[in-house]
């Protein structure tokens, strides 16, 4: 269960929040984690076939932290994922076909071919949209943005909570600091989840921060700090649910550190040459979140091997169907490229060399030719 760091009060005693989850919900946790992993495996295949036109980002080994934490949110809440939170997005309603189309830059992808990978979202009216906000690449920026999102909840008296993911690396940014601090003083209903996965690209955590644990930063911000084993999906759910309840009750910001491990490189191109020998293999063998949870399901809930196999088969079927659908979609029409930078004007004009070059380059010539002529045509 949640470990609180020195200086913070343990908010929960007795029952774990996950005790209240039904058997079906506990199986759902498995489903989301496995779906995340299998969908990424499918993306690897498509990447190798060059059908994924950009980089590919994996969350291998981190599925529990994304799924378990997001599972603590309600549909009306808003979540802002980071690059290794595909699992959280799926929990919040993103579909495999959307993810596949997005990676393949299809015309009918969520961003119509404008943005990469899992950089997409769906927010707006509570109860109408799925409530996840697309990230941008500069790290930490989503923290202040989610401060504003949750500030709107507070101002309007809405019973909604925000949750934003950052990695260990993003905690070094000014945006992270300013965002969590502003949210703290405003008592915004915001949960900041720090996924400590050991590396930011190639930079190990000890070069990122001299703090022993990121949860210790909570003291400095005067917010609730909670920490859990990010590879234990139920523990992840427990701390995040506690944090979400804290925020929902009007007590303000909570910082949750989930300790996990990034088994793949920053992106698919990264050969992880900077990782000590044996480290990845050891995490894979001893601390795989899906293996661990399957064991819990079998031993604690009496879930049979065939029941798990049926979920696995369903996932593969869903991903096959999604892949077929995504492959059918076409690429974007180039005329769409100039649409929608502003609400007004709704579209930019093509540059003259993309229009009728003859007309545009020479059509505006001063009719009298070069020289000293007045606008009315009289010679000066």
């Amino acid at each position, binding site marked *: 269960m949640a470990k609180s760091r020195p200086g913070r009060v343990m908010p929960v005693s007795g029952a774990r929040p996950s005790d209240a989850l039904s058997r079906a919900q506990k199986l759902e946790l498995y489903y989301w984690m496995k779906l995340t992993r299998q969908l990424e495996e499918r993306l690897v295949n498509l990447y190798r076939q060059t059908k994924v036109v950009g980089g590919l980002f994996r969350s291998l080994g981190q599925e529990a932290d994304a799924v378990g934490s997001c599972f603590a949110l309600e549909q009306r809440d808003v979540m802002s994922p980071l690059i290794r939170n595909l699992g959280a997005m799926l929990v919040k309603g993103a579909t495999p076909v959307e993810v596949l189309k997005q990676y393949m830059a299809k015309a009918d992808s969520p*961003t119509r071919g*404008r*943005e990469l990978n899992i*950089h*997409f*979202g769906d*927010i707006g009216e509570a109860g109408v949209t799925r409530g996840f*906000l*697309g990230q*941008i*690449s*500069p790290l930490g*920026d989503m*923290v*202040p*943005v*989610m*401060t*504003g*999102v*949750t*500030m*709107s*909840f507070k*101002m309007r008296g809405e019973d909604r909570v925000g949750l934003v993911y950052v990695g260990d690396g993003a905690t070094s940014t*000014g*945006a992270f600091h*300013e*965002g969590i*601090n*502003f949210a703290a*003083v*405003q008592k915004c209903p915001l949960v900041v989840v720090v996924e400590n996965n050991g590396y930011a690209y190639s930079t190990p955590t000890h070069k990122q921060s001299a703090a022993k644990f990121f949860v210790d930063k909570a003291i400095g911000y005067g917010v609730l700090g909670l920490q859990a084993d990010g590879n234990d999906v139920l523990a992840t759910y427990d701390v995040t649910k506690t944090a979400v309840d804290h925020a929902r009750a009007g007590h303000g910001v909570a910082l949750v550190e989930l300790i996990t491990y990034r088994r793949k490189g920053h992106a698919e191109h990264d050969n992880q040459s900077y990782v000590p020998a044996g480290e990845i293999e050891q995490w894979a063998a001893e601390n795989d979140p899906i293996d661990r949870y399957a064991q819990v399901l079998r031993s604690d809930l009496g879930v049979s091997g065939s029941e798990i196999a049926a979920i696995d088969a369903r996932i593969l079927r869903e991903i096959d169907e999604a892949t077929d659908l995504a492959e059918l979609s076409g690429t974007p029409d180039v005329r769409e490229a100039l649409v*929608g*930078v*502003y*609400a*007004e*004007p709704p579209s*930019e004009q093509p540059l*003259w060399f993309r229009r009728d070059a003859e007309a545009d380059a020479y059509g*505006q*010539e*001063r009719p009298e*030719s*070069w020289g*000293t*002529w*007045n*606008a009315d045509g009289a010679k*000066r």
Partner: protein
Amino acid sequence: MAEITYLEAIREALFEEMERDRNVFCMGQDIGAFGGAFKVTEGLLARFGEQRVIDSPISEIALVGAAAGAAHMGLRPVVEMQFIDFIANAYDMLTNYVATARYRAFLPCPMVVRGPSGGYVRGGPFHSQNPEAGFLHTPGLKIVYPSTAADAKGLMKAAVRDDDCVLFFEHKYLYRRVKDVMPDGDHVVPIGQARVAREGSDVSIVTYASTVWKALEAADLLAAESISVEVIDLRSLAPMDDEAIFRTVKKTNRLLIVHEDTRTGGMAGEITARVNETCFEWLDAPVLRVTAADIPLPYAPALEDYVLPQTADIVRAVRRLTAY
């Protein structure tokens, strides 16, 4: 009706917009209880309360980011930079996040970032800047920079109502020095429309903000030499009123661009390029620029005045154009 100052005009616009639309709210440093470093937001807290007039930590990134998040959810934040020089802290948030939001993610970002800008006030390198050109380069942002009190009010109301992010530059030299009687009713000046500040026939000066007044002063002096100067006040820098610029160039065939900002990479270079591409045949002389020197703005009055464009510089440049 009584005249009010440029500063009071901005305050009046904020009051009226907050009265009109409960989604409008203000955030910034010392804007509530203290009323802002220049007192632009004085009285807002008493009228609208802490929920809508938010005193923030010293966090420009968080202010702009939180404004964006609130704007996504349907609110219309107005963020104050205590001095516009500090907007540099939020450059990433404005250019990477806010400016791209509609295009990349179909997210509305109706928000205003406003603040005291400009020199001639002995403010030194960090309380005198004109960083507008640094944002002109980024698609997705709108930029306005009024020179008159009436435009300050009308453009602020337009900015608050705009569905995209508007950077609203306020010239602090003009805050209490220029006044207007406000037009009746709901005075909104559309973004993207320049204004003919003075009609003329021999030379056009395209300018904005503080240097509108210097250009008008120069035009008076040049009238005594029988040189008729037309002065165009851009008011909006993004989108820019190209047609107004081309119209005046085709009328006078001579163009001087004046701005208080530094020279290299400034607005004038962009305007020159647009005129070159579209009005080359109408020009009877090269386009000239009068701008600040490419120098961080110094504090000492003699140094500041030497670096910034002055009326005499404009007069000299116009004479050169007419003599060409």
